[in-house]
């Protein structure tokens, strides 16, 4: 163990120096709070300025497509449908960029609940994604399991992580399957997303979780490569839960498996995360942060 020497407190403290230090600390705290507020406001304004025009374009295209302005011919319909795909892609990009700014500014809110059933979250997700899949997309299957403990987490964020992993897999899997399976390791529940797709090249493996890194070019028809932010966001979200997200294995031409861990409800790890969240909340409230 490191030897720590504690110096004897000075008997006389220079009151002037003491007051000066207090003043400096107070000023610094105030500046930090102002900065925090400015970051928050910047993201709010950016959200508004970026999303409002997209909402108007989307709404107007939808109205024309559904005949609100009268009948339109097939060619116009086709053009507008293409435009809608582009708009939706742009909306996703804006969503991801805003998620990244919120993560980096530390102003993201996690609605963590103590007991979540990860298997049913995965099942609902697979059902929804399978229902809206086009012919070129492979089906998503979920492993049947009954003895998995509940996890602690934010349902929306965990769903977002799973959607990211599954849609990524689907982009690179022409034939075969994308499957979700589970395991328990000590205080953690592990979720695996496995595909039989094109795999990830050696060069890409090292940069996978960096911003704007795409795992490769999609191999399935018209699917967009995306922004390269999904894995970065997913990793950060899982880490906020006290878990980890990693590439379990990947082989070119054979497929990939991504995995993430979440703390089991009521475990020491889960309780520690809950305590940290409560502490952060109370700091924020005491700081008078809006």
């Amino acid at each position, binding site marked *: 163990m490191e030897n720590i020497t504690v110096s004897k407190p000075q008997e006389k403290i220079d009151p002037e120096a003491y007051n000066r230090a207090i003043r400096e600390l107070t000023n610094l705290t105030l500046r930090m709070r102002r900065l925090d507020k400015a970051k*928050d406001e910047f993201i*709010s*304004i950016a*959200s*508004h300025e*970026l*999303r*409002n025009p*997209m*909402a*108007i374009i*989307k*709404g*107007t295209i*939808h*109205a024309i497509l*559904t005949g*609100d302005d009268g009948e339109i011919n097939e060619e116009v319909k086709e053009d507008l449908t293409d435009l809608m795909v582009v708009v939706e892609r742009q*909306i996703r990009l*804006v*969503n991801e960029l*805003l*998620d990244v700014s*919120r993560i980096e500014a530390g*102003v*993201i*809110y*996690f*609605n963590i609940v103590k007991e979540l059933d990860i298997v049913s979250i995965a099942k609902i997700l697979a059902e929804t994604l399978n229902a809206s899949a086009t012919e070129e997309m492979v089906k998503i299957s979920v492993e049947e399991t009954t003895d998995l403990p509940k996890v602690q987490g934010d349902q*929306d964020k965990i769903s977002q992580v799973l959607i990211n992993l599954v849609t990524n897999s689907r982009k690179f899997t022409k034939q075969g399957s994308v499957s979700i399976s589970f395991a328990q390791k000590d205080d953690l529940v592990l979720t695996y997303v496995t595909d039989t797709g094109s795999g990830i090249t050696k060069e890409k493996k090292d940069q996978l979780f960096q911003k704007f890194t795409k795992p490769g070019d999609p191999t399935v028809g018209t699917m967009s490569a995306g922004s390269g932010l999904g894995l970065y966001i997913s990793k950060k979200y899982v880490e906020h839960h006290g878990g980890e997200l990693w590439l379990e294995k990947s082989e070119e031409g054979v497929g990939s498996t991504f995995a993430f861990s979440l703390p089991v409800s009521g475990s020491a790890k889960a309780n520690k995360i809950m305590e940290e969240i409560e502490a952060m909340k109370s700091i924020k409230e005491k700081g008078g*942060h*809006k």
Partner: protein
Amino acid sequence: MSQVVLVEDDALFVKMYQKKFSKEGISLEVALDGEAGFNKIKEVKPDLAILDLMLPKMSGTEVLRKIRSDESLKEIPVIIMTNLNASSDEVNQAMELGVKETVLKTDVVPEKIVETARKYLK
């Protein structure tokens, strides 16, 4: 007659919703800032209020707080239609004050909001 009030500061956004609501035969009154929005809601006492959160003069959350603390208005159902993420403080504050739904503007089209609004119309 059933009435809906929309408080939203983007005139083009408002125009798009006015067009759809009028096509569907629902009366939509609009206000372009929070203060005017609260006055409009007080005057009309609508079946439903749709509020943006980031508004000039008075925020949507403040409008909602005033609605909830006014005896004659507090039962009015409110939908929040915003550009802010569900995980933002503003949206969470609004939800604590009591709203029927919170939607992200880019997730919906006017047709969907008309459908939602019909649930609350008398």
